[in-house]
């Protein structure tokens, strides 16, 4: 029978209901609590348990709503939309059935002439008036929606004939016009990238400004789909680190990429070179783009290890060259060794699987 237990239980209940009720409900409930407290004080209580008070306030509200529903249904039954006194009394009778009142047994009675009226009038005459202490405003307050400026208000004329001038203005055309996509980075060795940085910046800045404006006005940022477009993908949104603009290459010090040693220096057969080299190039490029993606997504920069453990099958299937399998497996193995080091960084797996899916397309080479 601990009060604390009751209180915490009530708090849980309140939290669950708070999400469902609008602000109008909370206000009404608070007012009801005050009114009920005053009535109980008039009855003789000096203090209340908060849970008991809240329950009684709930019951009050339910009673009011019940009475309203009953009265309304009786009015509708009589073919009226608006209720009158008789409907209210009939509703009261329904609610007072369990207690009963004088005259309830009389079948032919009129609800007005029943004992109910007498009881209420007795109550009114005997009971002391206890005024509600506060001035209650009309609630819930309906907020007027402010529409955007119309064409006329801004001084423009609508671009289309079928759109009248008194309607709200269209948003800025730059926001929905598609801008040309910046050409993807050439698939060279990473060393070449540093030369292009400045040129990239020249082209990218205005685009970035536009897209920042674009996203600030409430439209969704473009989805990051193509790894080649990694540099062009922008995210706006202040305060969300995942949506902030990506860093430019060279802006932040990045640990150098550590390629598996054997990949670069591995002696390749002549035949293998023809077929595997383009594959390896593509893998490198996809890994680079993956790396750039990592730059965007990860804030901290541990040494980059390319995780290709799951790709062993893919690589071997992609290569698909039986006589050269031994050499291929060796390269796959050296990828795997990096894997073992990298086992803790599971987050990259998902990212890796993206470009790795593309190596499956290399089957068709």
């Amino acid at each position, binding site marked *: 029978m601990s009060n604390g237990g009751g209180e915490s239980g009530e708090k849980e209940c309140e939290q669950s209901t708070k999400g469902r*009720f609008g602000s109008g409900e909370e206000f009404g409930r608070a007012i009801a609590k005050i009114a*009920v407290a005053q009535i109980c004080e008039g009855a*003789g209580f000096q203090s209340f348990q908060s849970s008991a*008070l809240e329950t009684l306030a709930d019951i009050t509200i339910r009673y009011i709503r019940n009475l309203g529903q009953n009265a309304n249904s009786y009015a509708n039954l009589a073919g009226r939309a608006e209720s009158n006194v008789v409907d209210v009394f009939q509703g009261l009778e329904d609610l007072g*059935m*369990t207690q009963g009142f004088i005259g309830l047994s009389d079948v032919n009675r009129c609800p007005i002439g029943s004992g109910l009226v007498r009881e209420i009038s007795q*109550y009114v005459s005997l009971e002391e008036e206890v005024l509600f202490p506060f001035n209650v405003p009309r609630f819930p307050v309906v907020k007027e929606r402010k529409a955007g400026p119309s064409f006329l208000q801004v001084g423009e004329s609508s671009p289309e004939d079928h759109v009248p001038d008194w309607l709200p203005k269209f948003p800025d055309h730059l926001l929905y016009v598609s801008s040309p996509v910046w050409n993807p980075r050439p698939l060279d060795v990473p060393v070449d990238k540093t030369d292009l940085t400045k040129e990239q910046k020249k082209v990218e800045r205005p685009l970035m400004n536009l897209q920042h404006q674009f996203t600030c006005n409430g439209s969704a940022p473009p989805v990051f789909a193509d790894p080649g477009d990694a540099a062009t993908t922008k995210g706006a949104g202040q305060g969300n680190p995942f949506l902030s603009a990506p860093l430019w290459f060279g802006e932040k010090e990045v640990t150098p990429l550590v390629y598996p040693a054997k990949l670069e220096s591995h002696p390749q057969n002549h035949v293998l070179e023809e077929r595997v080299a383009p594959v390896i190039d593509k893998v490198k490029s996809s890994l680079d783009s993956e790396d750039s993606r990592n730059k965007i997504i990860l804030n901290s920069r541990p040494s980059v290890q390319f995780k290709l453990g799951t790709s062993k099958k893919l690589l071997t299937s992609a290569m698909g060259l039986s006589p050269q399998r031994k050499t291929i497996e060796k390269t796959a193995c050296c990828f795997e060794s990096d894997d073992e080091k990298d086992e803790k960084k599971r987050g990259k797996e998902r990212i890796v699987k993206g470009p790795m899916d593309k190596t499956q397309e290399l089957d068709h080479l």
Partner: protein
Amino acid sequence: MNQNQQVNEGSRGRQDDDAALSEFLASLMDYTPTIPDELVEHYIAKSGFQCPDVRLIRLVAVATQKFISEVASDALQHCKARQSAVIKDKRDKQQKDKRLVLTMEDLSKALHEKFHSPAMIGAQSPHAMVDFGENDAIGDRNERLDVKGW
């Protein structure tokens, strides 16, 4: 003849009733109920009750106030009864228990008396009061009224 007499009596009865009603409504306007009109208006509007007449809103408010005061007085009786029982056991704690507190226990007993009757089991109990869509959580709360020890 009989029918005429009955009709006459009925009409006279109705006239009396009308007079009583108008008298009652007039007295109602003098009395300001504790439950504010705006609150009552808001909640009965939610259930579809449409009426521009202030007197009806006052009537609903007065009826609700009467109901709540009855529940409160019943709870007070329970509280006093419990206190007198306690005083019999321990005279030392007499001074402590002078304070009258509305507890869940007393309230649940009072409400149970109010709603529970052999004829209307389940119909008018607090648990079975009209189920408003958004008030389901309150139903849970009311169910706890029956739990001894709250």
